[in-house]
């Protein structure tokens, strides 16, 4: 079964076509790192990976999308695109935590990697983070200042960990840096195989909107 995989929760705009059978194989993948162009680049990337995989939208059996956490505007681009595609093609949409895909790549495939902190950039000098061991999430997802985290981990991965390597106080590995399509597809694969019901793609915002209720109008005369 062919699935379309999308993630726009980090500066990486990721689109891929994966084949899900007993195994999961990524047939085509585009990763473009540009924190300010999710809206422009995602749709052409989808078009490109479908073409490269020799597929058309009606060939797809499901859409898998990274639910974040991540900067809101870019994150919504991926989720609304995935929802629109799945809705029109009448195929299920499945959500996967973006940090979980990184955690899968960092700890899920090799034994005894120890506990790993996965962190992506949350802007405002904060990171979105979670801790994984053997592919399982032990803590998070949450959003905090990197210097304020006290975690018992062997290493850290992800774009946010690289950005704040100096304050995290743990060894930071270069890879994986962005959520890999293989991880997103692998984590959704059981649902794809079971033809599980479609899910509403609800973003992991982890922050409330910035908005304050106004006080009384300020006087214009003194």
């Amino acid at each position, binding site marked *: 079964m062919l699935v379309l995989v999308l993630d726009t929760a980090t500066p990486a705009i990721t689109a891929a076509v994966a084949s899900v059978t007993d195994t999961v194989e990524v047939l085509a993948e585009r990763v473009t790192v540009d924190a300010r*162009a*999710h*809206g*422009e*680049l*995602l*749709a*052409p990337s*989808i*078009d490109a990976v479908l073409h490269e995989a020799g597929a058309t*939208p009606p060939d797809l059996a499901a859409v898998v999308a990274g639910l974040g956490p991540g900067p*809101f*505007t870019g994150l*919504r*681009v*991926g*989720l*609304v*695109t*995935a*929802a*629109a*595609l799945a*809705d*029109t*093609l009448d195929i299920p949409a499945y959500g996967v935590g973006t940090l979980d895909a990184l955690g899968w790549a960092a700890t899920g495939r090799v034994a005894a990697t120890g506990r790993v902190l996965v962190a992506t950039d949350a802007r405002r000098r904060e990171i979105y983070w979670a801790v994984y061991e053997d592919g399982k999430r032990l803590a998070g997802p949450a959003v905090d200042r990197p210097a304020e985290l006290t975690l018992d981990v062997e290493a850290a991965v992800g774009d946010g960990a690289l950005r704040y390597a100096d304050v995290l106080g743990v060894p930071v590995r270069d890879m994986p840096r962005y959520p890999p399509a293989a991880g997103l597809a692998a984590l959704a694969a059981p649902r794809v195989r079971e033809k599980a019901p479609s899910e509403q793609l609800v*973003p992991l*915002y982890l922050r409330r*909107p*910035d*908005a*304050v*209720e*106004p006080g009384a*109008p300020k*006087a*214009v*005369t003194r």
Partner: protein
Amino acid sequence: MVEPLVLGIETSCDETGIGIVRGYTLLADAVASSVDEHARFGGVVPEVASRAHLEAMVPTMHRALSDAGVALSDVDAIAVTAGPGLAGALLVGVAAAKGYALAADKPVYGVNHLAAHVAVDTLEHGPLPEPAVALLVSGGHSSLLLVDDLSRDVVPLGSTIDDAAGEAFDKVARLLGLPFPGGPPIDRAAREGDPDAIAFPRGLTAAKDLAAHRFDFSFSGLKTAVARWVEARQRAGEPVPVGDVAAAFQEAVCDVLTAKALDACRARGVDTLVIGGGVAANSRLRALATERAGRYGITVRVPRPKLCTDNGAMVAALGARLVAAGVAPSRLDLPADSAMPLTTVNV
């Protein structure tokens, strides 16, 4: 294509709108509004609006398709507001449009929100005589445009140099203890008041201002004048006559809007004035424009209030004009442009 079937998506502010038109005929106008979520903040909160757009997109699409009795596979094109508007909010609509277009293999047209406010009138009154002058007044915009060809050529004549007209309604409503958005409650309160009770200023109408700003607007001074007047009453321990303040304020706004719009028509030798945007739902603006235009033999076209406020039908209406005129669709990397210039009809 004479009567293209076009679906339009609008998410530039707090309304998630999906409309479907066939040529000049409205088939569906589904709107989900997040206005109630913004009311306690006294204005639209961009992040709250963007979150609501994401939640509302698929249900609103289902409602529009069902109301029109068509499938997405039937449409000739998908049009979407690409700007101007709130960046994060626009992007939800633009991304959704691309997702739907990719899935259904349809061309997508990224269009200008303001040109769409003009185009929507064609759904009610048929083809627009061109050239026409358009007055667009809402919470985010106050502009005068010369429309030579709706599908290709829109020329800005003037716009507000500070607050939008709708913003002034919101701020004055707040001063008077009326709810957000301020347009409807001020319109209602004004019916009980005397528009001549208080002489509020008419921005940019003095001879010295007309030289440089003949077709521009200013509502910031008016808003301050209302605040000063209300505060003086409060300091004196006198009750504030809400009806009179609302009526006199509304009269000042409508006086300037209609005077400048009709001046633009006469200066350009144009005999049709189209009014659009949320403030076009104001009863006094509609009445005064029609009354004054009659003196000059100018025809005023104002769509019904539901079509004046933001909706997807207006976007579909403009999309239908573009398809009918053979304009090329947008590329898949079409951006959302929060500051899209008035001269850009489509991208």
